[in-house]
């Protein structure tokens, strides 16, 4: 029995959740003595007011698309991957090794190599939690959290040790060679007369992220593997009955998830920093959770939610710059979005369902429902 139309489920509920989160955030801003309305104007201006601002917004969004897709595909298999942060860190390591130690003739091939390296390292970091979940029943939520901490320690160790150029005081690798530098939007879209996206870090990885959205969509709804992932996510016992191996699905899904999280590194490490620094991920792995929940685990939803968080992130940076509101406000908003779209989903949903039930005409014909796509 369908309680409300699909569009309400897909559009209305996330929107209401978002409004609630925004409302509470506004209260927080009020409480610390700032004006929410001017804060919002500042954020909009700072994140969408110029191609420069857009350049930052889209740069952040690129990160969040990758980490959001990573969380989303795991959710389809009913796996909650909180390890995106660590997997993205390892992705950065993969990119750094590939950029530093392999001589690349051209950025396009380097991008391909970097993407493969990032994905492999991210996937490898997801492999152990996946295997432990599949074979030993260790809860993947806890193990992936632990692997975030272990990843941080590992990168710390490498960046003040083996990967640091001799003579440098900074915990970071050396700069990547020229041939691996990815074209930014400034390089791609500026003309001789007008410079667009000047100095903004958004780069060609954004298009890779869009491709990843399409690929994940096709994977989930058009391939056998996707069918099996969804079936497993809905019912493990039924999956076994149908001959779908739980071990295989858990491991493969987590490899894809970790790979997607890792691929974020082609944006932040290869595209922006052009070297690997400590804490390069800056919490983007965690924001992926909010993005996936907000986007209802659908690649298109993830894209929209990632853009929203790109806006919040860049807007928040502007706020921190011009007002006394610290950047951590974004973490609060992120938490509220996770809370409302994830944990308190029913709080928003139940009154809405009751409302739609009341609006419905009394005798109910067998209504056509579209397949879940």
């Amino acid at each position: 029995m369908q309680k409300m139309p699909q569009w309400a489920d897909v559009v209305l509920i996330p929107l209401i959740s978002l409004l609630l989160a925004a409302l509470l955030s506004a209260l927080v801003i009020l409480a610390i003595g700032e004006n929410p309305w001017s804060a919002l104007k500042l954020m909009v201006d700072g994140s969408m007011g110029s191609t420069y601002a857009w350049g930052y917004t889209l740069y952040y969004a690129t990160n969040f698309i990758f980490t959001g897709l990573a969380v989303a595909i795991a959710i389809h298999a009913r796996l909650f991957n909180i390890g995106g942060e660590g997997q993205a860190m390892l992705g950065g390591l993969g990119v750094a090794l590939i950029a530093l130690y392999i001589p690349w003739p051209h950025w396009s091939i380097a991008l391909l190599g970097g993407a493969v390296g990032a994905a492999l390292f991210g996937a490898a970091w997801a492999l152990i939690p996946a295997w432990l979940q599949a074979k030993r029943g260790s809860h993947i939520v806890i193990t992936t959290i632990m692997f975030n901490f272990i990843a941080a320690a590992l990168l710390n160790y490498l960046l003040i040790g083996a990967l640091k150029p001799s003579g440098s005081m900074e915990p970071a690798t050396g700069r990547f060679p020229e041939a691996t530098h990815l074209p930014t939007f400034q390089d791609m879209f500026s003309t001789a007369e007008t410079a667009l996206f000047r100095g903004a870090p958004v780069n060609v990885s954004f298009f890779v992220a869009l491709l990843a959205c399409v690929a994940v969509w096709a994977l989930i709804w058009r391939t056998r593997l996707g069918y099996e992932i969804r079936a497993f996510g809905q019912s493990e016992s039924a999956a076994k009955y149908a001959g779908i191996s739980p071990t295989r699905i858990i491991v493969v899904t987590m490899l894809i998830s970790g790979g997607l999280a890792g691929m974020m590194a082609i944006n932040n490490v290869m595209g922006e920093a052009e070297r690997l620094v400590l804490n390069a991920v800056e919490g983007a792995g965690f924001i992926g959770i909010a993005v996936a929940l907000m986007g209802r685990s659908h690649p298109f939803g993830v894209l929209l939610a990632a853009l929203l968080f790109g806006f919040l992130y860049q807007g928040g940076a502007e706020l921190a710059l011009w007002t006394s509101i610290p950047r951590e406000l974004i973490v609060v908003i992120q938490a509220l979005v996770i809370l409302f779209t994830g944990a308190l989903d029913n709080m928003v949903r139940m009154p809405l369902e009751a409302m739609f039930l009341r609006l419905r005409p009394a005798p109910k014909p067998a209504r056509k429902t579209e397949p879940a796509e």
Partner: protein
Amino acid sequence: MDFLTLLQVLDTTIRLATPLLLACLAGLFSERAGIFDIGLEGKMLASAFLTAAVAAVTGSVLIGTLAGIGAALMLSGIHGLASITFRGNQLISGVAINFLAAGITVVIAQSWFGQGGRTPQLSGNARFESIDLPFVSEIRDIPVLGPIYAELISGHTLLVYVGLLMVPLTWWVLFRTRFGLRLRAVGENPAAVDTAGISVVGLRFAAVAICGLLTGLAGAYLSTGLQAGFVKDMTAGRGYIALAALIFAKWRPWYALGACLLFGFLQAIALRPDVIEGTLGFEVGVQLLDALPYILTVVILAGFVGRAIPPRAGGEPYVKER
């Protein structure tokens, strides 16, 4: 390693184990009632901040602690609302609470104190002072036992002793009282509790509230006992380590004490690379020591050190069924 160094390391172990222990017992109450809580971290952090902030303003650590407990209870309330009332996903709710605490503590700290997300340094009555147990000066000079009593057992702050006393108290409540019987039942089979005419919602909220109280104490200890003030993200994963200890302890109070002491010991020796080098004869990277509790947790979770069966109804919201 000489005797005195050993005592020092063990003394540090007890101090570092205390927040883990309080948080672990907090998780024990919640999870025994069927509510998974990965938000221990956030509740500790919120309490650490508000305790330090209020203690800094009022100059009283007790008022601060009460405020800290209040903060943790509020987050517990949100967790209860999400996972009990609205039958939401308990893991997601926990994650949200951790982020909420991580963000809001810094935002408010910046707004109140303007010191980059920290509270002022606490001193005097704004901190928990160490307590000398009776007869310390008389016993101190007895060989072996004297130093153990004086250095190791005596001289901790109030909350350390509260934490240790919580272990037998938790055991007693769980296994010797009506409330404990019902609490364990609701984590195993809420339908049995419901059909017996007891409120599942009420019991679970009670458990979540106790969890808030204990994480509140854990956070208060962090910022006013272990350290002298709040700094950003000062829980540093302790909530997750407490969860790991809870699993390691198979959801039992006495085992929890053992698990927390072990993790506390690991953290204690990580602070003393010189001792490790002196004992083992080679240098161990400080990053490895940092990562060791997490690695150990994964090994434990992998079930290579005994299998743990969680409460049967854990993580599942209760929906009435015929």
